[in-house]
């Protein structure tokens, strides 16, 4: 097929055929004042080198996490990605175009996704995991829809300490399906009474661990309260590395775990592409959204991998499908799988421990500063700090000093009470003692 632009003669012939004198006449229904008068004001064309130089200049105005001490988190986490991850990612065995419907040419991809599912199930403490979803927030929304299918109820209880983007995605995806969302207010101190919000019409309660403010908690009592009312417990995990150190949701009675898998193998990359983790109990597998790879044997009894339980999916069941977002994040899931495989179980625990230790050291040092108080008491690698000044201004002031100090909570929770002075600070294994010193010196200067 050739793509050739129209010339004036083609255009004239087409206009004649439909009986219009000019292209402008086709837009006669657009109000006069909305039509641009004259050409768009853009610079003229440039050669490749000039364009590259211009883009490099623009990029140079950013302060990327790779070029500054960075304590950013709040749902996206920087971790060291070994070079071997990218090398293995680009191997020919994994070069399968799009969805591996044809197992006979896709064994590499299918086996990797099967391993990914196994890793996700083990990390979350659940029985079955799918081959990934679009990202953590859509995974959470899919979990809500799944709970609705299972319970045939419409009331959804959301923790006020769920990442605001996740709460917004849930609200968006249920806007026209009649769910009744009951969200607890975003508050940082005291315990949330989510159990008190559950009744016999509740489909599910959605809670994040570690929560948006970094706090780690035991969800067993909440799980029991939900199950007493016939509701499901959905646990959201935005920092997958935390599962290398804390009790997995599956051990605390979760029915569905929806998580963000970016922490393993995937760079921050301006917020995407990321990958949604999704795991549940075996008895709910038929209601699970997304692709599922299964292990089987071929005609000669040899081990092989295929997509399985496809009757849940839209290419078989159309409008009755468990989800109409059917694409998994194959490449991101593969990066996750490779990174986690390279770490191994001992390496995962070690990396999680390093993160936790770095957070403890950092939190203690920040807490000693005048005008800063660590609010999160039990955390993994991220915690909230109450400052004596608005957090947004402090972050700007430190960025001017070349330090990415953290994420102001009010940026994600505009209008929520008492969030102005809350700063979310994330520690990780990439930070050096010089990085920490730069943050502490900057905070001391700005807060005094």
């Amino acid at each position, binding site marked *: 097929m050739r793509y050739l632009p129209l010339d004036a003669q083609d255009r004239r012939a087409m206009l004649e055929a439909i009986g219009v004198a000019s292209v402008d006449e086709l837009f006669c229904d657009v109000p006069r004042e909305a039509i641009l008068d004259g050409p768009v004001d853009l610079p003229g064309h440039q050669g490749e080198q000039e364009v590259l130089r211009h883009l490099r200049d623009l990029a140079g105005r950013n302060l990327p996490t790779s070029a500054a001490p960075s304590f950013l988190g709040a749902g996206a986490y920087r971790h060291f990605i070994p070079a071997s991850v990218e090398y293995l990612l680009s191997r020919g065995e994994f070069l399968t175009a799009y969805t591996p419907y044809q197992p006979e040419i896709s064994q590499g991809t299918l086996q990797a996704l099967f391993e990914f599912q196994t890793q996700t199930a083990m990390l979350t403490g659940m029985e079955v995991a799918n081959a990934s979803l679009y990202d953590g927030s859509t995974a959470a929304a899919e979990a809500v829809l799944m709970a609705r299918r299972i319970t045939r109820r419409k009331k959804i209880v959301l923790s006020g300490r769920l990442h605001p983007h996740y709460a917004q995605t849930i609200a968006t995806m249920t806007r026209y399906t009649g769910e009744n969302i009951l969200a607890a207010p975003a508050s940082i101190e005291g315990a949330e009474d989510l159990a008190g919000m559950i009744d016999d019409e509740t489909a599910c309660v959605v809670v994040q661990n570690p929560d948006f403010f970094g706090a780690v908690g035991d969800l067993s009592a909440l799980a029991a309260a939900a199950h007493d009312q016939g509701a499901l417990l959905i646990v959201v995990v935005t920092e997958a590395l935390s599962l290398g150190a804390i009790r997995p949701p599956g051990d605390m009675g979760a029915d569905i775990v929806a998580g963000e898998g970016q922490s393993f193998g995937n760079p921050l990359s301006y917020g995407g592409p990321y990958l949604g983790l999704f795991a549940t109990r075996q008895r709910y597998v038929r209601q699970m959204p997304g692709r599922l790879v299964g292990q089987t044997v071929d005609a000669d009894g040899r081990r092989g991998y295929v997509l399985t339980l496809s009757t849940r999916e839209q290419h078989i069941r159309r409008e*009755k499908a468990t989800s109409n977002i059917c694409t998994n994040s194959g490449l991101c899931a593969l990066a996750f799988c490779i990174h986690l495989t390279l770490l191994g179980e001992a390496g995962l625990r070690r990396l999680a421990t390093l993160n936790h230790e770095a957070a403890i050291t950092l939190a203690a040092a920040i807490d000693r500063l005048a005008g800063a108080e660590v609010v999160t008491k039990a955390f993994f690698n991220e915690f909230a700090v109450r400052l004596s000044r608005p957090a947004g201004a402090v972050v700007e002031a430190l960025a001017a000093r070349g330090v990415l100090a953290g994420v102001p909570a009010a940026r994600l929770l505009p209008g929520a009470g008492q969030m102005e002075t809350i700063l979310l600070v994330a520690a990780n294994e990439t930070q050096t003692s010089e990085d920490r010193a730069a943050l502490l010196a900057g905070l001391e200067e700005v807060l005094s």
Partner: protein
Amino acid sequence: MSNLRFSKDHEWIRLDGATGTVGITDYAQNALGDVVFVEPPEAGRELNRGDEAGVIESVKAASEVYAPVGGTVIAGNEALAENPALVNADPLGEGWIFTITLSDPGELDGLMDEAAYQSYVEGLA
């Protein structure tokens, strides 16, 4: 077999007092092929006539089971969880899908008897 009634969606219902037992017909199981999974409705669920009551998956397709009459589900056939092939082997017997307390026995009048269903099925061929 006079207490057997059939729907155009190929469900059968057998009445025993106020209780009906529902399954799919031999014609339906034959059209579906090997059944690999059955999801019967849960006990206590209220169904109107024509509501989707459950799902049957075969190697060929996934299909809905509709309620031939309205009422309250008494139980699903738990044996199908272990052995969904009962639907193929004995569709009008051990392969039943759920039992229901009828809310309006008059709804049975809208269903076909065995002879009418036979000629209905022959007309589909």
